[in-house]
Every structure is written in C-alpha cells, then in structure tokens.
C-alpha cells in the first residue's frame, strides 16, 4: 500500500535542484506574440488560440515563467478534483519523466469521479450561493448536479432543466426557483445575474442610473418570462412551480414619465421579442386552474425561456457561462465582476471572450472540453511567482501575466486538509474494503476496466458520504452568507480560532495508524521525515532553508518528536501557501 517514501536521491535531478532562484522573465512571450500577430490562427486548438489572444494583449510585456511541476500538480488537482494531490499522487507525477505528462494528468483527472464532485461544488455555490431552504433537500440537489457532471451533461441542457423546472417529475432542478421563494423579481435578478451575467436589479424601477446599457426593457424582458409563474402548494404542503396562461407586464419609470409600457412581451437580453401562440381564453390550459390544482398552460413562457436561452443562439447566455468557467480556472473573470457585463465594464479580452463563448457553444456546451482547453493553456500554467522586476501594472490581474492566487473554497479547504492529514486515505481504505467484501458487489472486483471505473465511483461516493459532515462544518465557517456570492476573500478571527483551538484539525493531527503524523514520525531519518511532510501537505519538497529549519525543529527534543511533527504539520496546513491555490 505504501510506496517508498520520498528521498532526494529518488527524485529527478531537476527537481532536487529546484530552489527559489529568481525565475527569469519569459521574453519568449515576445516572440510568441510576433508569431501570433503574423499568422492566421484558425485551425489551431482552442488552447493555443487562447494563449495567442492573451499574448497579443500583453504586447511583449513580461510574463511569469512556466509553473514548476510542483505548482502545477497542486493547482490542477485543486481545480479539477477539488483537493490537493495525495503524497503518492504528487510523487507519481513528479517522478514521471514523460513529455506530455501534464496533458495526460488533465485527462485523467477529468475522467475521475472526483471531477463530478468538484463540479457539483462549483455549480452548487454558483447557482444557489449558500442559500438554505428546504423546498428541495440540499442532498437531492447536490446529487442531481453530481449525476449531471458524471454524465458530462451539456451545460445548456443542465440550464434548460433548471430554467424549465416545475418540480413535478424531475424535482431537484426546481430548487433554483423554489428555494428563492418563487418571487418573479428575485428570479429576474438571479436569472439575469447567473445565466446572462447581468445584474439588472436596478433597472426594475428605472433605467440603471450608472450603467448605460441596463435599461428597464432589459429587466422586463426577462421578467415577462417569469411573472406568470408562482409557487403552488399542494394539500400535503409540498411546493411546485406553476404557471398561469395570463398576466401581462406593464411598467413605468420612476424618473421618466414618458415611459409607460403595457403588455410588454418576453425577450432575452440582446434578443428579439419571442413569438407566442395565441389561444382563446377558455382554451389556454392543459390543466385549468382550480382549488388545489396546479394549473398547466398550453403555452408556458418559462418553458420558452429555458428553450431560447439555451439553444446556442443567445450570445449573452454563452458569454456568461464561458466567463464563469474561465473564472473557475483563472481566478478572475474576463468580465469582472461576473454579473456586470455591459459596455462600460468591457471584458479585458473582448475577442477572447467571444471566441470562448462560440467555441463552447459549438462544442455542445461540453464543460470538460472547455476546462481541458483552459488547463492546457500556457496562461493557466504560468507560475504565481512574480518575476523579479515586474511592476504592479505588468502584474495586474486582468493581464494574466502571472497566475493569480485563488483562495480555496470551503470544500477545497476541507478536502485538502483531510487529504494531507490522511483522513481521506483512511476513509478510502475502509470504504473500499467494505465494497470489496460486499457479496452483491463482488463482480465489480473483476479487473475489467469499466468495472474498475464503477468501483472507483462507488468508493468516491462512500468516502464523500463519510466526510460530508466535515465539509459542512467548513462551509459554515468559511462560506459566504446565504444569498451572497462567494467571491471576495475575507479572513476572520473565528476561522483562525477554529484551526488554532478547534477539535477538528487538531484531531486530524493525531498519530493514529495511517495518519500523516504517523507516517512522518515513522521516518527515522529526519531529512526523509521532513520531505514526506512537505510533499504530503504542500505537494513539494522543502528548499534548503526550510529543510534545515524543519530538521532542527524535529530534532530539538527527541522525547517530543511526535509533538514536533504535529506542530509543523499544523503550521504548514495553516500557512498562506496552503490556504490559496497558487
């Protein structure tokens, strides 16, 4: 089970020699830019064209050098599977001498069951923004997201299910509407923000006073898709989303008396008025409204919204999701803030955003495809270390000349701490033993690749179920307030107290068999012990200064060796280096 522990001699020379020497500014970008400017780019893979667009805007300015393998392995695990690599996984990658090992790792992670879990977390936070509410149980909603990403369900299909949801047959996607209380103004605001990248709330009562593009008709265009919908409660108190066949939209401006719209028809941002069938008043329903009956109109405006938003022709819909996936990988939206897409807040790279949006739609809204291309870019794979002499202006986040620091989400932080301390591995071992013993699942143990894959998924699901409570505690401690986007980083004294004195992290640092502390302290040779510790927690080896410092800490008092390991492990886990994806 336990492969040989790391020691310097086992590592490739290039790795062992790597120190914090100043990386040179990669003037190669200049050359690339010249090439890019000179040659047509069509036909190149998307990731190459992304880099060309970024280089073009950098106009020969310096960029950080390529990330080291240690930086890369930690980053890609966090972004694609939501946790740091285990010690063994990190070692395996660092020892791999093959040329295309980064691309191979990206592909492998995208196919792992943990990728679906990571996407479940990303889209849960994106779409529900830590709201509680119990119209649809959180677990059902999360399972729905997990299943969707396991199948790599096209994003437009997922969005269509959510936007059309009524909670009758496919219940989980109705959480978006039902746990927001179904109020058409709130739904207009959040559909605008989360599916079209436009926070139109201010255009409810008048044209937006600060944003020239955000006019009232933009708001009421979306509103008209939703205002006939309402929450229907049946006799057992269960809620559903329902819709009437009537309900016209009228609005005035509180500023401009000339604005007086009546019977305003639904339209998407940037789209034309949607054609609607007409029915006689007594012929408008499949199920007519009555007491305790959920009405079903023959023509549903909400269904129509789901259809026209997601059919690939809405530039605004496509841009929004491309921008949000870019943000997930790069740490900053091309449009930033993510929900303020308008002409006074243009994208940092307008053509790039359009290209991503078009290519993503053309791929069939294939989330894996886009994330893979983003991960393959040099832009993504740059180091977060500032090259010496780089100015603040050159390093400005919207230039993507240096990799940005991304604070770990509560889920990433919990999973990574459990990975580093050995909690996850312990769960994996015990859950796989259970699965392997289960007679019903015995045939899964055949080595057939498909079955192995199924077994891996079962193990992942069992491990997740076992540690979900821990993750929930981290969400309570590190998540945003319900309904607030989880984007800006804030550190609180309570979080620090939670790690300093709380039982959870200190408990994970116990010396029980198989734990990180156990594994490290069993290493007699101090250098090897210290290397194991660094590789397990920070996914890298210590440099010379760190090695000396850590060995000294470890050997100061031979009678307190376990305590020294626990203290150092705690310090690495609570360091800034661990708290950020860098």
């Amino acid at each position: 089970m336990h492969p040989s522990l790391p020691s310097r001699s086992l590592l490739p020379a290039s790795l062992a020699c790597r120190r914090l020497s100043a990386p040179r500014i990669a003037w190669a970008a200049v050359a690339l830019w010249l090439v890019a400017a000179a040659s047509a780019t069509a036909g190149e893979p998307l990731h190459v064209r992304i880099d060309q667009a970024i280089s073009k805007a950098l106009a020969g300015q310096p960029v950080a050098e390529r990330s080291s393998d240690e930086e890369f392995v930690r980053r890609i695990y966090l972004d694609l599977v939501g946790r740091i690599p285990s010690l063994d996984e990190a070692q395996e990658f660092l020892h791999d001498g093959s040329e295309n090992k980064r691309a191979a790792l990206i592909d492998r992670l995208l196919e792992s069951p943990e990728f679906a879990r990571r996407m479940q977390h990303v889209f849960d936070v994106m779409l529900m923004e830590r709201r509680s509410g119990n119209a649809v149980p959180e677990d059902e909603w999360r399972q729905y997201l997990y299943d969707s990403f396991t199948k790599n369900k096209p994003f437009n299909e997922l969005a269509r299910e959510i936007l059309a949801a009524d909670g009758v047959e496919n219940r989980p996607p109705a959480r978006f509407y039902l746990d927001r209380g179904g109020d058409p103004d709130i739904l207009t605001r959040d559909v605008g923000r989360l599916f079209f990248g436009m926070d139109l709330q201010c255009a409810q009562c008048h044209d937006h006073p600060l944003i020239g593009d955000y006019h009232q008709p933009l708001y009421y265009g979306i509103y008209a898709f939703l205002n006939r919908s309402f929450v229907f409660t049946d006799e057992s108190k269960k809620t559903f989303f329902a819709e009437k066949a009537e309900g016209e939209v009228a609005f005035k401006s509180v500023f401009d008396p000339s604005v007086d719209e009546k019977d305003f028809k639904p339209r998407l941002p940037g789209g034309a008025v949607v054609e609607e069938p007409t029915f006689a008043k007594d012929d408008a329903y499949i199920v007519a409204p009555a007491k305790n009956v959920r009405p079903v109109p023959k023509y549903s405006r909400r269904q129509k919204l789901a259809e026209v938003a997601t059919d690939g022709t809405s530039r605004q819909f496509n841009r929004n999701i491309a921008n949000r996936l870019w943000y997930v990988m790069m740490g900053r939206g091309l449009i930033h803030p993510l929900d303020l897409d308008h002409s006074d807040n243009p994208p940092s790279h307008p053509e790039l955003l359009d290209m991503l949006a078009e290519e993503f739609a053309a791929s069939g809204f294939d989330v894996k495809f886009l994330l893979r291309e983003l991960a393959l870019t040099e832009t993504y794979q740059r180091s977060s270390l500032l090259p010496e002499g780089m100015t603040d202006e050159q390093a400005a986040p919207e230039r993507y000349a240096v990799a940005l620091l991304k604070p770990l989400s509560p889920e990433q932080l919990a999973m990574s701490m459990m990975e580093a301390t050995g909690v996850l591995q312990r769960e994996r071992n015990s859950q796989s033993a259970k699965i392997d013993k289960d007679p019903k699942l015995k045939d899964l143990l055949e080595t057939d690749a498909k079955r192995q894959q199924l077994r891996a998924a079962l193990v992942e699901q069992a491990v997740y179920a076992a540690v979900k409570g821990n993750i929930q505690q981290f969400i309570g401690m590190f998540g945003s307030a319900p309904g607030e986007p989880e984007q800006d980083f804030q550190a609180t004294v309570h979080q620090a107290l939670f790690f300093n004195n709380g039982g959870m992290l200190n408990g994970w640092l116990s010396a029980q068999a198989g734990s990180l502390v156990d594994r490290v302290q069993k290493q007699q040779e101090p250098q090897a012990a210290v290397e194991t510790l660094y590789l397990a927690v920070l996914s890298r080896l210590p440099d010379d200064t760190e090695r000396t410092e850590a060995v000294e800490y470890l050997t100061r008092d031979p009678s307190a060796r376990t305590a020294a390991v626990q203290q150092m492990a705690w310090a690495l886990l609570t360091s800034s280096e661990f708290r950020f994806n860098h």
Partner: protein
Amino acid sequence: MKCQYACQTMDHVIARRTFLGGLVGFGSAMGLAGIASPLAASQLAAQQKHMLVIFLHGGVSQLETWDPKPKTDTGGPFRAISTSVPGIQISELLPHTAKQMHRMALIRSINTKENDHGKGRICMETGRREMPGFTYPHLGAVAAKLLTHESNPLPGFIRVGGGNGVNKKDAAYLGPQYASVTLGDGKPPANSLRPDSISALADAARNDFRRRVSDRFALRRRAAETEAYVQSYEQAQRLMERRDVFDISLESPSIQEKYGNHEFGRHCLLARRLIEHGVSFVQVGHSNYDTHYENFNFHIEQLGEFDATFAFLLQDLHDRGLLEKTLVVVMSEFGRTPKINERYGRDHWGSAWSIAMAGCGIQHGAVIGKTNDNGTQVVDREVHHGHLFHTYLRAVGLDPTESFTLNGRPMPVADPAVSAIKELLA
C-alpha cells in the same frame, strides 16, 4: 409605479450624487477600518465610539414605558411618574430609569407601519424594510466596519445571549469579518480556549513556524489576501490573551449584585465590560414582551427586571466615562396596540410607538414627537426606522449619507430617502 426594492438598494439619490462627482466610499474622516492613521492606537481607543442596543423582544408596550396615557380608554391601570427631567413623565413601571432621564432622550412618534415580528426586527436593525432576496447589513455590522480599529482583536459586533456562534447573515455584503458573534449565555467566543493538549509554548512554536512559511510564500506574491489571512491568526492570538474580557466573575460582588442576579443583569454587565474593552457594538436581548394576553402583569414582571438593571447600567457607564462615547438604544420590533383586547392583552402595533436612547451624541432630556391623547396615532414629527438608523450613525460621528462599495457599486449606508432627526443630535 411603486418600487418593491430596487430603488432602495441602489437609490437614485446616491446615484445622482455620483453623477455630480460626489465622493463614494469612505474618506479619512469616516471610519477607521482600513485607513492608515498617524494616531497611536491608545489615542484611537480613547476616541472610539460604541453602540449598545438593548432589544426588548416581542415588542414592548410604549404605553407601559416611554409614552404613558393614564386615565384614557387606552392607558391601562398604571400611572405616569415624574422623571429627573422636569416635564417628562414615563410609566410608573420604570421608577429607576426615571431617575436617569437627564441622560436619555425619547422618541415618541415612530410609525414603521410594520406589525410582523421578523419584518419589524429587520426594519429596526437594518434601517430598511425587508426586501425579499436581498439582505442589508445589521446596524452592528455597519458599526463593526466603521468604528473598529484594525488593532482591536475583539469582534466588532457582539450579541450577548442566544446560541453560541457567528451569524454571517448579519453582515450581508460587508462580509464575514463584520458578522455578529453571539456569546451564548455570556460564554466567551467558540474556540477561544487553547485545548489542554497544546501547551502555550507549543502553540507559540507552531505559530512561529506558520509565520515563517507564510512569510516566505508572500515574499514573491501579491500579498493583500495573504496578509489578511496571516493577520487573522494574530488577531486570534490576541483574542485568546484577552479572554478575561468575557468573564464577569472578575467584577466585584457588589457590582454584580447591582446589575442583578438574573440573566439580563449578567448580560448587561458583560456588555459593559465589552464596551469598556473596545468592542464597537453590543446587542443585549431581553425576552419576552409579546403580551397578547395579560399585558399588564407581564409588563410588571418584565420591566421589573429591566428597570433596575438598565438604570444601573446607565449610571455605571456614566461613572466610568463610557456613556459620553457610547450610544445606548432601547428598541423593539414594534410597540403594542393602544386598544386593550378582551384577554387584557395588547397586540402588535407599528403605527405609533416609542424608543429610548441615551449617551453619546444625543440631546439629553429631549423628547421627539408626539402621539395623540390616547396614543392611537402620531400627531407630531413622525419618523420611522430609516430616520432612526441615520440618527444612530450621526450620534457616533459617522456620516450615514456615504456609501459602501459593493462590486464597484455604491450601496448607501442608510436609506438615502430620509435623514437623521437633527434636533435630537447634540
């Protein structure tokens, strides 16, 4: 068309200010958070203003407290008594408080038009009416952000009583740093005690090691976020060192006795200790005034506990020189109906009710507004939660017409459609 919520979240008044080139965001005259100041921390501490809110849950009756109407059809059985301010009378249920009236002010003309507990509380605590799907920060979070100096390790917004924990919803878009911390039954904050298994020495050593790892990491990276993270641990260490702030057993037995040997008394004493040690905002609750039945008996009982403790709290704050820099507000989610129901109760009533204030920044002995003879409506200087919110902030030297910046957008600190009650301010 009637605005449901948007106009108030991002009001055109502020928008126009911005169009005219008005300053959005806080200048150096406003607040201490994040602003480099040449003043020493001790000087800042001496100047620091505080707020103490005493929330009488359920809705205290204005007729049995600040606006009695004896001998009317609505007045109930209690008399009005004179106070230390000639001409001001309050209910006889508050004999001790009456002697502190020269440190207080009353607002008798509140009309919030809100008779729902939850919504009324939101009005009074955030200065705005509830907006579905949108949360404004609590007064305490605003105070925590604008009044707390960075060097203070204690949370800026503390609620005393209730379940132990951090309530992020209170801070809304200001972020978790300004969330309220609830000290359940007056206990110190969660996780503020180092576990026995880790000695002080070991804790110091591992934190020292952590600092070195973090410093090395930040050396070559853009550091604003890493700095905030590192600082949170320093704050945690300082908070742990000052854990005695939360321990009222360190107060003399005579002081403890004067505050009262009951939960409300202990909570008020803890509140005073917290203010004394630099906490910007403290909220203490007292339950329960929701007297649909037997209003008069319940008010005798509840106010009997409130009165002596509150009066001594004001005296104690004054004696320690804290009252001049602490705004004290006694509020509820609403008042109670003038009409007495058949169960001798009074029901929810947001249309004509009162609150009391004391201390910092207000005209002592002032009475603002008036209700009619039997208290069924406001007849002079009608105000609501919005005016009050402005007034609290003005009283502690803040400018409520400024805006926070959220995602690059201005969010007015207080409802821009109204302003402070100027004649109440000192």
